[in-house]
């Protein structure tokens, strides 16, 4: 059963096309993350779904009802904003109940809903305070509560954690996930933070210039990115890219990059590689083994350029095939700059893209 359905949605501001015939179906109870860098149209899409922006063309269905021309309040949505957007002159309690009072819901029912929301979010002690007397995390909790009391099926989050510091962000991230698990609402969540996307989402829609590049579950997005953009966008540090050409020799396939030939025979789709084809080989930092020679894997030598110890992990920046690449190893394994390491690659989990179309092969 679809909860939110966006059909052929287009949006123009004058001559500028922000969204062009975009289609998206979101299942009931699904947590969908719209991921992309700023200006990719993800917030615009969310505002269209919320009814805060009038669309130029296309339709929006929420719970199988056509809401394309409906007011935001009639769409059955609750929304949480990046800047919290709490009404500064009202107490937390008033902030929560404002929408319900506008909707002329009877006071006992309002009290009941405010009580329930504040219990779920553990903000009962704050009810009499003004937003200016709250910390960032508390404010965002209240903002979530304001969506919660509306008793709606669809929650829209517009970068809700971007204004918080790193520690609070990870705390609230867990809380939003817990909230979703207990409420089982449909949630559409806009972010530019890939960690939030990967940790929270049932499915991620990676967007770029108004177009969804890939729509899939987080592990598929991470392990099998559909194109070069998605591959480069997801993962920190980024996937290592090697531009080269395909070579075939003795029934094995290679990608030659300058003086290095990567054996990609174990790549699942290697048979589709044409000799001479220009490709981009993508290797995630954690898919490279350092000084762990394995049977049947070729060994490459590289020199450590910079070492970045990060506690649990240790990040090595190496030079290979005339370019810089990053490798992630366990935190206790240390390699001072200048040391030589032996690398092996797991091509079964690598990604190969066509250099021209930039699509996965």
């Amino acid at each position, binding site marked *: 059963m679809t909860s939110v359905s966006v059909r052929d949605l287009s949006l123009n501001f004058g001559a500028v096309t922000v969204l062009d015939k975009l289609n998206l179906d979101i299942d009931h109870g699904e947590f969908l993350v719209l991921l992309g860098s700023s200006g990719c149209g993800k917030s615009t899409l969310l505002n269209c779904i919320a009814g805060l922006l009038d669309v130029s063309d296309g339709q929006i269905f929420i719970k199988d009802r056509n809401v394309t021309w409906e007011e935001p309040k009639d769409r059955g949505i609750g929304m949480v904003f990046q800047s919290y*957007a709490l*009404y500064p002159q009202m107490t937390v309690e008033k902030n929560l109940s404002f929408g319900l009072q506008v909707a002329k819901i009877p006071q006992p029912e309002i009290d009941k809903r405010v009580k329930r929301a504040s219990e779920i979010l553990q903000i009962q002690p704050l009810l009499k305070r003004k937003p200016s007397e709250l910390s960032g995390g508390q404010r965002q909790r209240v903002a979530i509560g304001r969506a919660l009391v509306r008793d709606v099926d669809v929650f829209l989050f517009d970068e809700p954690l971007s204004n918080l510091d790193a520690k609070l962000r990870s705390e609230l991230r867990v809380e939003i996930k817990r909230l979703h698990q207990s409420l089982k609402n449909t949630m559409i969540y806009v972010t530019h933070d890939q960690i939030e996307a990967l940790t929270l989402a049932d499915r991620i829609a990676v967007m770029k210039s108004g177009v969804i590049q890939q729509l899939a579950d987080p592990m598929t997005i991470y392990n099998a990115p559909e194109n070069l953009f998605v591959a480069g966008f997801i993962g920190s540090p980024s996937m290592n890219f090697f531009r080269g050409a395909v070579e075939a020799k003795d029934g094995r396939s290679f990608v030659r990059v300058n003086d290095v030939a990567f054996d990609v025979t174990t790549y699942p789709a290697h048979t589709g590689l044409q000799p001479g084809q220009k490709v981009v080989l993508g290797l995630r930092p954690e898919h490279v083994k350092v000084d762990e020679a394995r049977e049947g894997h070729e060994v490459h030598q590289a020199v450590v350029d910079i070492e970045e110890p990060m506690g649990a992990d240790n990040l090595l920046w190496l030079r290979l095939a005339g370019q810089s690449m990053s490798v992630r190893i366990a935190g206790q394994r240390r390699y001072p700059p200048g040391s030589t390491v032996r690398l092996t690659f797991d091509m079964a989990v690598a990604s190969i893209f066509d250099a021209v179309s930039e699509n996965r092969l």
Partner: protein
Amino acid sequence: MDNMVASNNTLTAYDKGPGRITAGPSGRKPRRRLSRRNIIVYGTLIVVALYYLLPLYVMIMTSLKGMPEIRVGNIFAPPLEITFEPWVKAWAEACTGLNCDGLSRGFWNSVRITIPSTIISIAVASVNGYALANWRFKGAELFFTILIVGAFIPYQVMIYPIVIVLREMGVYGTLTGLVIVHTIFGMPILTLLFRNYFAGLPEELFKAARVDGAGFWTIYFKIMLPMSLPIFVVAMILQVTGIWNDFLFGVVFTRPEYYPMTVQLNNIVNSVQGVKEYNVNMAATILTGAVPLVVYFVSGRLFVRGIAAGAVKG
């Protein structure tokens, strides 16, 4: 092991804190009060302040003297004998034309002009500004441009057409007519003021209110208005002082019995009959200027407090 030693060292360093200070610069950097910089800054400020305050001083002193003492000619000397006679005369007895009831008539006229004009113009302009900033309707930009251009057309060009319009409306020469004129002429600058202020408030607040189901007026009264006290005070200062000090519109669009205080002041000061009563003139002038002065003092403090209380921050 190295780490252990290092942390031990830090600990002992903290323990020994007070005894570690050596000779040489330490703590707050000393500053001389009578530095060249301070003398120039404060000297300039004092001179400028005196320059502005001196006329006021002369006016107050003169208004407290009797005519014989004024004729002695020393305008800076304080009064030998303080008298409030000129003030009473300026307020209640000075003659303009046939009326001899002083400035009081003009004062009440000005009050009856200023209060409605200020309230109506601010009410309309704030809604204008809110609509222009938050509800971007079709043609909003054009409307705004026309309004702003209106602010640059010289008043003199519009006087006669307005006289005709007021006459046709049947309100020429009345207080109502003058209130309408003041309201309209306040519109461009006030709308600009409010539009810019509302545009500066976080847009997400407006969006949140719409998701909450609030409409045009609910958002205006419940969300925008409570956050906008400072800009309302600014608008009030602008309007009250502007309308109170207006002379041209008052003299053109009203009849003598409705003349505002400024026009009446002019008529008292510039009357050619009899002796020039400098003390009465001074008192009358101070009385007329008192209202804007009070507004500045009272609301200026309110204004600062409004900002300091964080009324603007979300």
